[in-house]
């Protein structure tokens, strides 16, 4: 972990190579993801957008190493990912903070584990630095249940960043928040990313969020047998300002493009679903005797 091998910037830093993930026995396997390929360059900010239930979380689990693909490989800096580790920090939708630990202790758990050689003072400085980064210093000793949703997600962000991962995997991190908190956190994440460039993959179902944050937006087709489609590159200049962004013609163009793509995808999916009409077995009750004494239609007879 200490020696990071120099990596040619042109090659993909994080990649999915012909990955399929299936469930069930071999002869009847249902693939959630099928022959999926993804290439993320170093320090690139990629958004993956898709409908819920299309296998977005599976994608994050694969990238993080929490789940192994059935076929194909996941690689990071040329090495095959076989298990999760602090090089790929994951921020979960459900915060997953330990409720019995304070903000400080939650982050400490991660930092102590990733940097076991740090002295006590260094440890404290490190933790406090990241708490400050997400503006939570006043809530340093609060427990998660004393914090709002936005604050909790900030703690989660601070914990993930404190591990100093090379890749940040954000699994719908803001979808549980209200619009206001969401906007604030989007700005904060962007700001941090501008300061310390990192490879980021964010999973989202919000087109605005994707355009605001990402360099590239990759749509995920409807599951099962989901796949990553062609990316929409976002050429908007950084830093992006959400107040002026909506006026920007490129923004408008991208938003229309992506939205119509998603709507079209939804329609195709529905049509394909309609074509697969399954005849249901005829189910009629075998016994016509009254089910219960309270059945009125029977009693009135």
């Amino acid at each position: 972990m200490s020696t990071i091998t120099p990596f040619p910037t042109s090659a993909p830093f994080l990649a999915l190579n012909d990955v399929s993930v299936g469930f069930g026995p071999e002869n009847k396997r249902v693939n959630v993801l099928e022959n999926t390929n993804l290439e993320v360059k170093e320090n690139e900010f990629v958004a993956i957008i898709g409908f819920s239930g299309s296998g977005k979380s599976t994608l994050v689990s694969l990238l993080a190493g929490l789940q192994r693909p059935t076929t194909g490989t996941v690689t990071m800096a040329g090495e095959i990912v076989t298990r999760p580790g602090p090089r790929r920090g994951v921020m979960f939708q459900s915060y997953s903070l330990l409720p019995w630990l304070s903000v400080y202790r939650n982050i400490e758990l991660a930092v102590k584990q990733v940097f076991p050689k740090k002295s006590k003072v260094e440890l404290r400085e490190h933790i406090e630095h990241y708490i400050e980064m997400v503006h939570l210093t006043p809530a340093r000793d609060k427990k998660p249940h004393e914090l709002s949703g936005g604050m909790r997600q900030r703690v989660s962000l601070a914990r993930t960043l404190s591990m100093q991962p090379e890749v940040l995997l954000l699994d719908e991190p803001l979808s549980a928040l209200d619009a206001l908190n969401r906007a604030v956190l989007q700005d904060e994440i962007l700001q941090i990313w501008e300061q310390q460039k990192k490879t980021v993959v964010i999973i989202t179902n919000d087109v605005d969020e994707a355009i605001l944050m990402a360099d590239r937006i990759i749509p995920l087709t409807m599951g099962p047998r989901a796949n990553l489609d062609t990316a929409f590159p976002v050429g908007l200049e950084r830093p992006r300002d959400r107040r002026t962004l909506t006026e920007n013609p490129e923004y408008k163009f991208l938003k229309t493009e992506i939205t119509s793509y998603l709507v079209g995808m939804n329609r195709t999916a529905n049509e394909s679903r309609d074509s697969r009409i399954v005849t249901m077995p005829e189910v009629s009750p075998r016994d016509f005797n009254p089910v219960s004494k309270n059945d009125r239609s029977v009693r009135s007879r």
Partner: protein
Amino acid sequence: MSAKYTILKGIDIAGLNFLSPVVRLATGEEPAKQMKEIGRLIVIPTLAFLAFFWLWAVVAPKHRTKSGEVPTPSVVWDARAGIWRFHNYETAKQDGFLLQGKERETELARATARIAEVGMLEKIARQQLTAAREASTVKFDTTVAPAKNAYDTLREISRESRKGRTAALKAEAATLNTATEEARLAFLQKLRDTQARTEIDKLELAKLKDRYEEAQEITFPEVKDATRANTVLAEEKQFLVKYIDMLGKDSRELKLAAAKTKLKETRTSFLTATEGDLYRLGSGIIKNEKFIKTTASSKYAKPWTLPKQIVRSLLCVFAGFLLASAIAIPIGILCGLSATFMAAMTPFIALFKPVSPLVWLPIIMIIIGGFMPDPENNAFLMFFDKVPFIKNYKIDPMFLSSAVTVALCSLWATLVNTALGVGAVDKDHMNVARVLRLGFWSRLFKIVIPTALPLIFAGLRISLGVGWMVLVAAEILSTSEGIGKFVNDMYTNGSSESFAQMFVVVFIVGIIGMLLDRIMVVFQRLVSFDSAVPAG
């Protein structure tokens, strides 16, 4: 303002919710609502309790047993005082035996003064008893005697009249030798009428007898009170006599002094004695020296009193509880972590959980007895004789058997709850652990156990409750000193006083059980992370 919320929070954690409307009312918060709450949480339960006591007081004396009638609340209250008096007297004797010098003399003077006082009081009490008895005789005569007289009179009258009627009929029968059929039948009818008359008389008599017997049921509370006062004084006098002995001639100090004087005398005469006496005096000296040595460390052999038995029972239940926790929590964690281990344990849990303590106890007594054939010199037991505080409670094989029985019966709740708690670890938390690459022990202590803690404590709470219930039964059976032994002794004793003392035990066991439960509730709340509890 913040102090108020601290108090309210404390009340909530302790589960004493009935106090919170009182605190709120005291700070003037929504008085009408608080009064309603007080009514619901304090007044109603109190009324329910009073109704219970009233019903008890009415129903109990109706049932007579070989130990007298079932005691009423007031009798039970007096019995409680009796238990306490006995404890105080015994403690006083124990302390008095060891008093020395001035202290002993002052105490002796005080006791002597008191015995004179008690003598006076006893005289008065005896007079009161005599007066009460006389009054009761009068009362008895005035209420019972008329009923008895009425009954006796009617009985006499009916007997006489029956005799008269029988004689008349017999005489008439003698004249019927030559009578006609009609006359004979008429006689038969007369006979029937007479018979019916006698039946009516009998019924009347029975009624009067009932009334008489009812009158005899009359009780004389003033006589009972006077008798009780006499008994209390007699008990105190008896105690004082012994106590004065212990402070006086039987005190360790005086005994030692006497022995030392004697030793000195014997020594002097030994040094000047002639050959014939030398052997006798010499062995006398040795015997005396031995006596002094044993006396110097002797103590009053205080019998077990209920307060001491309660402490021993608590020690026993905690020993069992600790043993149960030490077994159940690790096994429960293993069960929660491994489905395979859980599958292996399930049949054991299902099989042994329903086994009664009364089956375990004899088996365990025999097994422990096998480990400790000579309890007096057992190294393990002798270890406890050196532990401060615990050494006063005589740890013996019976104690260990009771504790193990408590453990065996109570560990199941903790085991099952721990397994449940460990099994309920959040998948996301485990994912975090995997990303951080936490090792097995870190995962266990940083994620698994903290998650399971509230459920573990819920299990411990149930275990402690079960353990406390099981303990009393185990002590009755094993005659291990404790609350159970007290109940057993009272049962064997069989007097009406000890009958009432068993009722006292019901309340003591209940209150202690309730307190133990409350303590566990507090612990449970403190480890539950979702409730707003400031920890540390």
